[in-house]
Every structure is written in C-alpha cells, then in structure tokens.
C-alpha cells in the first residue's frame, strides 16, 4: 500500500524566498508531524543541534492553522503535535519554574531536537542504504546456474528385531490360516487329444463324444473342463483331417469318427501336422 501523497504548496510561507522547495505534506499521515517538523527545521538551514525550537514551534503552528484554513483534513498525529508544541511554546516563554516532578521546558525542547536529529540520521542512513547497488537492479547473479546434482545413495536399515518379528508373525499367520487351495483339476488339451485319439482309433463308426466322455468323468465338477477340452481337440483333429465330426442340430449330441482311410498324401500330411498316428493305442 503506497500512501497516496497529496502535495500542496505551503502558502503560509510568505516570508521565505520563492526559490525554496515547496513543502510536500502527506495529509494521510504516513510521513507524520515529525517529518513536517524536520522539513521546517531544514528551512532554518542550521545544525539541528542549534535549532530554535521556539521558532520551529511557531512555524509548525502557522502551518497547521493554514492547513485548517484550507480545510485540509490532517491526521490526528499532526493535531496532537500542534497541541504539544503550543504547550511547549508557552512553557518556553514563561520564566522557568523549578518543577522537580517534571522535565523543564528546555529538556522538552532538547528531547524534541534529539528526535529530529535521529529521524534525520535514519533518513540519511536509508538513503545511503538504497544508494547501494541492489541485486537484480544493479548487480546480477549467474544467469544460468549449473545445479548441483544430488545423488542419493540409500543406506538401508533394519534391525534384527524387525527381522525376527516379521518372520515370526508371518509364519504364525500362515501356519494358522494357511488353506491349501486344492489344485483345480483341468483336463488339458493334450489329455483330451490323447483320449479322443484312442476313441477314434477304437471305433471306425460314428461315436457320441459325450457318451464316450462320461466314462472319463470321475467327478461331476470336471464335466465342464473335459467337455471344453475335448471339443477343442476334436475340432483340431477335424482340421487336420484325422477325424470327422457331425451334429444334427444345435445342442444335439456330437458324433465323431475316424476319417475313412486317408490317401497316402493325406496320411503324410496328418502325421506331419504333429498328430499321433491313429490307432497306436488301439
């Protein structure tokens, strides 16, 4: 938030030379009455230590009156300072009374001069600070830093206790709840093929596959896998020309038989196709 500074020429300063810089006062109060006093003091063009606080108080009070005449709304700080300066002025003008409980008017004036001196000093310090070369304005850092690659080598840690508890707990868990899943019996295509070859080798006439298979099915649960593998193997054998298959209608029984004695060429082809010679087990 930048204080919105309002500038106005201090018209009251009629007794000053016209080439003096115009007073710029921020009526919002961000600079403050001390700042105003400092500006007025600078116009006395003397060392702050030798400043006439009385004259300064007069100038300040004149300024405030002028500002009020112009109906400028001054921040409360300015009015508080005006009241204090009016009080100080009256004390300075009266013959000094020894008041052991409080500061003398001179002490008060000196304290004010010291405050002004401090403010001026810090102003100068601020100016010197900001006159220094500033980063990214006057001086610059390396524009293309070459980053330091951080290679992390993990060093793994575990304790013997971790190891033993891990071992015991998992052994215990599996020992108690270990269910040996029964290996699911699956009739492989190889097994089916072997069985079918035996089938077509034994009977040259049409044979119902399912009827034949029932003999093989020991457990009802195997029915699906036996049927599926047999059917797949049967199709394979038909493709190879070793057997024939037929079915009257959808869902009707499947019939299979050995193919009528093949021609030489066919026989060779069937054997070259990897099919075992029919009837070897017959």
């Amino acid at each position, binding site marked *: *938030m930048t204080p919105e500074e309002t500038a106005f020429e201090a018209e009251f300063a009629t007794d000053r030379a016209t080439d003096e810089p115009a007073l710029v006062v921020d009526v919002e109060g*961000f600079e403050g009455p001390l700042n105003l006093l400092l500006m007025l003091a600078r116009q006395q063009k003397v060392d702050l230590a030798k400043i006439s606080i009385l004259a300064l108080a007069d100038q300040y009070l004149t300024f405030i009156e002028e500002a009020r005449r112009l109906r400028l709304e001054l921040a409360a700080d300015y009015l508080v300072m005006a009241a204090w300066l009016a009080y100080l002025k009256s004390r300075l003008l009266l013959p000094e009374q020894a008041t052991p409980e409080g500061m003398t008017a001179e002490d008060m004036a000196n304290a004010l001069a010291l405050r002004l001196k401090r403010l001026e*000093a810090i102003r100068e310090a601020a100016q010197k600070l900001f006159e220094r070369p500033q*980063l990214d*304005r006057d001086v610059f850092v390396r524009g293309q830093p070459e980053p*330091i690659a951080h290679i992390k080598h993990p060093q793994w840690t575990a304790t013997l206790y971790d190891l033993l508890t891990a071992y015991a707990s998992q052994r215990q868990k599996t020992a108690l709840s270990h269910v040996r899943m029964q290996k699911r019996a699956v009739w492989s295509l190889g097994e089916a093929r072997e069985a079918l070859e035996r089938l077509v080798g034994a009977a040259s006439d049409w044979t119902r596959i399912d009827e034949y298979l029932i003999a093989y099915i020991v457990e009802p649960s195997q029915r699906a896998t036996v049927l599926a593998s047999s059917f797949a193997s049967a199709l394979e054998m038909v493709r190879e020309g070793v057997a024939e298959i037929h079915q009257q209608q959808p869902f009707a029984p499947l019939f299979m038989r050995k193919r009528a004695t093949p021609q030489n060429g066919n026989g060779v082809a069937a054997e070259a196709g990897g099919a075992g010679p029919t009837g070897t087990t017959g």
Partner: protein
Amino acid sequence: MSLAKRKIMSRHEPEEAVEARAEAVVEVRPEELRILEAMLFASSEPINEKDLAARLPEGTNLAGALERLREDYANRGVNLVRIDGKWTFRTATDLSWLLSKETTEKRKLSRAAIETLAIIAYHQPVTRSEIEELRGVSTSAGSVDVLLETGWIRPRGRRKSPGRPVTYGTTADFLSHFGLDQVGDLPGLEELKGSGMFDGRLPPGFSVPMPSDDAALRDDEDPLEPSDLDLGLAPRAEPASGD
C-alpha cells in the same frame, strides 16, 4: 599472489623471474582456484566457506585462495563478493547500465517503507512502537506488512515488556539484496552512533549499540510462539536454526 606483490616483484626481480612467475600464474592455475571458480560460478546462491572447503583438497588455505580469487576478479566484469559470510560472484556494480535493461522494474517501496526498513536494519531487534516513535507516526502497520512481503525483514521474537510486542530484524535476503556481508557493514553506522540514535531506548549502562541480526535472541527477547506462526505473523521467518 596479490596485485601489489606482483607489481613490487616485477620491479625488483630479474627478467627471468618475472617471466617464470607470469607463466606460473597464467598456465598452471592452482587447482584450488579452479575448483573455487567452478563452484562459485555455477551457483547463483552464495556458498559458505564450510561447503567450499569440503570440495577442496585437504590442507588448502581457503582464506588465502578466496582472497587471491577476489583480487583476480576485482577488475573484471564479474566480482567475487562476500554476502552474509558466504561467497558468490556478482556482476561489477559499474556495469549495471549494461544489464538493467534486461530486468523488469521492481516495485518501488514507498518512502515510509524505506524509512521503516532502515529503522529495522539499523536498529534491530526493534518493535513496531519503537519504529513509530522514531518516525513520529502511529501508523506503520502497512509498511511492516509490505516489508514482510519483500522477505527482507522477519519477526524474530517478542520483547519482554508489557504487551510482549513482536521484535523485527532483517533476513539473509536483505543482506543479499543490498550486497552486505553483515549488518555491521551497513553504510553510515558510525554517523548514526554519533547522532545518539542508539541511546534513546537503551537503559543506562546497557551497551549494545550496534544492530544485530544474529538469530540468537537478545536478553530482552522471548521466542515467537507457535501460534504466532499459525496467525501468519511470521510467514517469511527464517528458521531460527537457519544460520
């Protein structure tokens, strides 16, 4: 070898010696200087001496090597400088005209904020009411907020006094921005001491006239409380252990 030494030698030594030295300087550049150059050039952040030493051969005279390097670069377009006790290369200040074109204009601080920053820098640790007293105004909240946003100041603790006001100090970013090795190098510190600037708030006999950004709290400071951080009061505070 320092510049001064080199000049003296070249004046008093026979030609051969000068020649040999010149070759030594030019051709066989000591490895520690090359290592320092490489590390300092590569990084955009200042590097502390401990980290620099860690990469140098055992027994290297780090201070000597850094000084030699500083001299080597003193009249170049890039200078070796010490910031916050750490070392870094920065472009030479007199070449700012060359480079400033490239940068976007940074937001300007208001005069109130500049003054507040100076008070915090030169007077740290300092409370808001002390800032206000020095400036003679009662509204410095805005300036402090703006400064917290720049990352140049941080709340550092709470003064052990009624109301336990927060104390403010400057950060490493502040030193880096203004190219200072330490707050003791702030310009015009001596003049400020002369102005009686530091006398005002110090009880008699209490002689710590210089500003300090030492992370360690002073006797009259308490640490910030966790709730201060929750409130976002110290969003930019450096960890106390940071340096």
